[in-house]
């Protein structure tokens, strides 16, 4: 009986330590929830994203690489991304059943059968082919939950002003990554920029992205998500990660 009491005491003490491990600021969470609610209520949107990504060069130095994206989403099963930057110029179109990947630089394209929703498609294509979908995290329904699960600390840093606009500034400290998220201080509370710092990697590389030109519920015709090969474009086979 004494042993059981000691074990229980240890467990309670242990859980107390764990309980102290997380500090989540209610203001920050309310803001993030509000952002997710608004995004979840969108039936279509488009935005531009400018990214600055730290990459390791051949001398193990961090160098910054930049990319620009124009993203369109419509309903649960349509997406179009135009990308310029470190991976060249390419366009991806998803129409609910197929993802096309067209390279403007090489004038070739691949076609992949795809799951029926945009989020499933993103998961699958990133996992199997390493295809990037910029800032897709914000479009996951449980964005706040997931952030809370990973981050020991989530703090509202206050308001900050950048280029004459006011933003809510939120910091999340995870085990391996830190996140700083700026939300627009306006009616829509949409993400405006974010910074991820990889604490577990040499030099703590960062991924920084700035949103712009948000369009809320624009009318996007279905046909814009259907891929038609440009004249003369060559179809290529898309190799999955790990495939030989």
């Amino acid at each position, binding site marked *: 009986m004494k042993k059981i009491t000691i074990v229980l005491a240890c467990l309670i003490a242990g859980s107390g330590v764990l309980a102290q491990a997380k500090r989540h600021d209610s203001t920050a969470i309310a803001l993030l929830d509000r952002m997710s609610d608004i995004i979840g209520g969108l039936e279509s949107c488009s935005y531009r994203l400018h990214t600055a990504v730290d990459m390791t060069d051949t001398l193990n130095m961090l160098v910054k690489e930049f990319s620009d994206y124009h993203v369109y989403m419509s309903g649960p099963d349509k997406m179009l991304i135009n990308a310029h930057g470190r991976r060249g110029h390419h366009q991806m179109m998803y129409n609910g059943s197929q993802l096309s990947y067209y390279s403007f630089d090489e004038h070739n394209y691949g076609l992949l059968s795809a799951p029926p929703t945009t989020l499933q498609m993103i998961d699958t294509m990133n996992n199997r082919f390493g295809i990037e979908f910029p800032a897709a995290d914000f479009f996951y329904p449980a964005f706040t939950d997931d952030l809370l699960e990973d981050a020991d600390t989530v703090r509202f840093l206050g308001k900050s002003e950048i280029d004459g606009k006011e933003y809510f500034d939120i910091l999340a400290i995870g085990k391996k990554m830190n996140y700083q998220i700026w939300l627009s201080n306006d009616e829509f509370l949409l993400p405006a920029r974010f910074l991820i710092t990889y604490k577990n990697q040499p030099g703590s590389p960062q991924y920084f992205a700035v949103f712009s030109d948000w369009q809320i519920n624009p009318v996007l015709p279905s046909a814009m998500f259907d891929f038609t090969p440009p004249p003369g474009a060559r*179809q290529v086979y898309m190799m999955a990660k790990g495939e030989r």
Partner: protein
Amino acid sequence: MKTRTYQYRVFFIFFLSAAIISFDAQAQRMGHGASGRMGGGGGGIQRGGGGSNRSINGGSFRSPDRGSSNLSGSTRNNNMGNRNNGNANNNFSNRTNNNNSGNIGNRTNNNNISNRNSGNTRNSGNTNISGNTVNINVNNSHNTNVVNRNTVVRPNPINTYRRPPYVYGGARYYCYHPYFYHPFVPFVGWGPVWHPWGFFVAALATTAIVVAVADAQYHYDQGVWYSASNGGYTVVTAPVGGTVTTIPSSAQTVVVNNTTNYYYGGSYYEKSGTKYTVVAPPAGAVVDNLPEGGQEVKVGDQTYVKVGETYYQPVQMDGKNKYEVAQIEQGEN
């Protein structure tokens, strides 16, 4: 009400299971499991934003155990101890979804390439792969029957490469020359007696000779290797170790690490005395042309030409489009 509570519990248990299972494979900047929980845009159990059927993500979702947003200083159970951290090379997104659609496939490929690994989605003409995603309708308009015996690349010491490898999918692609894309056009200028792999002839020319390699018997005629089949002869890849006394004079000389190779019709030879012996493609060899049967393959951001098991990187030398045999090493470091 009881039924609803039960449904919530079942769903919650399911979502926890799915989340835990999928974390190892996630490659995201932030850890999420949302689409696995919510089925993408397929609705959910608690919506804060009132997502509609046309919502881009099915509406927002909050874990029932979180309650309200007033969590200052509170504790949440964290069952996600094994998340992938992001990588600056990775995308800010993305997680594994175990709920992919089935019945996807239908890659139409006119190739009949027999050397491909079984289990590789490329092998399946019409596949029905649950949980997989496959290429659609890749039509290479070749009609080849490639039987590979010599297309596994002979590697070089890695330290001879001064360029960093191109990394994709857990493999490193080494080349001496920089990537320079140019469309693959099968070369057909090897003369009237040359035929691509898989080509069938009913009879051989009288100049053909018999060459035994290991326990197999081949027929060789002016740079083309045949194997008897179906009452005739099918062009096959040159068998490594096969030795002949002549190769076509148009063979290209290829020097790799001070070793001279001769390239003709997709096959490589080394000369010893007066004889030429078939060898596997040497990594780093740069050739002018590739034969019919090659296939353009998008490897991440770069497009290679795969001939048998050999990956050729398009390069440019002295203003001319060429192909270099890539050396592939497993592992990203």
